């Protein structure tokens, strides 16, 4: 028998405002997140990621549709659900005059077993190198984020809902965070995280959904989603680009969207680097930069290939 999905939404919609000022933030979202997976919710700012999360937590109410978390109704059983989940909002606001320890103790008290929870919070704080004796107002944005992670994870919830979790964390801490999420998955727990950073989702998620303008465009495994073989390449030559080299760049099947500007060339490279290196080797290359595709690029590439395949 298949286990109950940890998150299950059915035609979930949310509209803000009324009359002519009405905005559709989420449109008929139907999806499932299974136990033991790290699910990424990808989309640009304003796509509806935070709205979805706030609906799951019963902070806002749906205009239509429903959601079930851990087999319970997101609205009717919200208190029981929140007992079993941890949450980190995108914009973390806490009582500025209180110390990390005071907030940890308060939230642990509300959750019940404060002794055990506080002990685990201390372990998490140590792992994240967070000083919990400082007042919130004295913490940097990165350290506030760490405190938010401690608060979300200290009671070892079955489901973690994280909204843009690693924004503000330095690269080393991002790595620690990724390891923590993998450890979480290894324990059979579930993580639902939203992000607009593809590399983050790529690093830790098993599956991801792409949300755009409130509409879920796709839910795919990370391998399938990120299996696009192109990069953006920027080449700066010492001198003006020779005509012959320009012609070869234009003729290459691997290169598209070529933009020439004096001694610089920007292009979209499909496949291996070798054909490009052979062409640009004719000139003196001062600088070569490669950028991974943006979320939007992936999105467009994914869809153009899907449509092409039909």
């Amino acid at each position, binding site marked *: 028998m298949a286990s109950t999905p940890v998150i299950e939404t059915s035609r979930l919609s949310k509209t803000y405002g009324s009359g002519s000022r009405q905005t559709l933030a989420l449109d008929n979202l139907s999806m499932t997140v299974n136990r033991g997976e790290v699910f990424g919710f990808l989309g640009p700012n304003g796509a509806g990621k935070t709205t979805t999360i706030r609906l799951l937590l019963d*902070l806002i109410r749906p205009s239509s549709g429903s959601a079930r978390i851990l087999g319970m109704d997101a609205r009717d059983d919200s*208190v029981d659900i*929140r007992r079993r989940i941890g949450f980190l909002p995108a914009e973390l*606001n806490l009582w500025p005059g209180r110390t990390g320890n005071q907030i940890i103790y308060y939230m642990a008290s509300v959750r019940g077993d404060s002794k055990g929870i506080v002990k685990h919070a201390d372990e998490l704080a140590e792992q994240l190198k967070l000083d919990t004796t400082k007042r919130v107002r004295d913490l940097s944005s990165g350290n506030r984020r760490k405190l938010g992670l401690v*608060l979300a994870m200290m009671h070892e919830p079955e489901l973690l809902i994280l909204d843009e979790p690693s924004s503000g964390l330095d690269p080393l801490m991002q790595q620690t965070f990724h390891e923590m999420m993998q450890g979480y998955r290894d324990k059979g727990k579930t993580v639902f995280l939203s992000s607009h950073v593809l590399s983050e989702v790529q690093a830790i998620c098993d599956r991801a959904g792409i949300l755009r303008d409130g509409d879920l465009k796709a839910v795919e495994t990370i391998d399938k989603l990120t299996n696009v073989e192109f990069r953006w390449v920027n080449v700066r030559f010492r001198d003006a680009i020779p005509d012959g080299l320009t012609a070869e760049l234009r003729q290459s099947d691997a290169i598209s969207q070529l933009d020439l500007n004096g001694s610089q060339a920007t292009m979209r490279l499909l496949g291996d680097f070798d054909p490009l290196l052979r062409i640009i080797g004719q000139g003196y290359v001062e600088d070569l930069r490669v950028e991974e595709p943006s979320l939007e690029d992936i999105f467009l590439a994914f869809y153009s290939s899907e449509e092409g395949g039909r």
Partner: protein
Amino acid sequence: MTNGVILANTLRTSWKQVLYWGLGMGVLGVYIVFISSNSDIVEGYAKLFESLPPAVLQAFGASDAALFSSTEGWVVSIFVSEASLILSIQAVLAGLNIAANEEQSGIMDMIMSMPISRTQFILEKTIAYALITLGIILCCVAFPVLSLIAFGVDADIGAVASSILNLYPGLLLVTVVTSLLTTILRRRSVAIGLAAAFVIGSYIFNVIGNAASGAVADLMQQLSFFYHASGEAIIAGTFNPTGTIGVIVIVAICFAASISMFNRRDLGL
């Protein structure tokens, strides 16, 4: 249903309000009692007030100049009228502290990610601020009463204490009305404006009711919580608890409505 953690936490983080407001009002009470201990001053004021028209007398917090002839009448008229106005500000602030401030600052998302219901949140926070206001009122009672004893002033201490305690239902009303407004309107600035209008309007209704005569003026006065919070009737021995009970019933209705509204709407900005 309620485990009391939010109540205890609110009291732990807000007890200083009792100290500051209580001390401030207590000093005012001591000052008024100190003046009342000088019979020449009280007699002088009584003669002055007897010569004033009702509308001007009302500005000093009394509708009957005869009240100023007794020490307890003098203390209650001056102190209760000033305390009711000043503590109305505290009551509005308490109403904002129930939900609006944490919602405005974005902390509500973290609070409501914990396993507590919206009803429990409003219930425990309202009880906490009701207790804080009670603490302030008890300071308001204690300082004048102890001063009357300390200065050896001959006054009906029971009447003075009862008159000051009678402020409590009215202040609770201001708190729950403010809380209700914030649960309906979400925008704190609009709620503050309307709560201020409620307090000022209530004060003006009481002034007009005292100064004018007729059915309309009487009705306006009955609608004012300042009228029901006034200790004059207690001092005069004509206190009818119906008005106070009415205020408590309205407090209960507003409280239930604020829970209902908070349960219905989206949280956060």
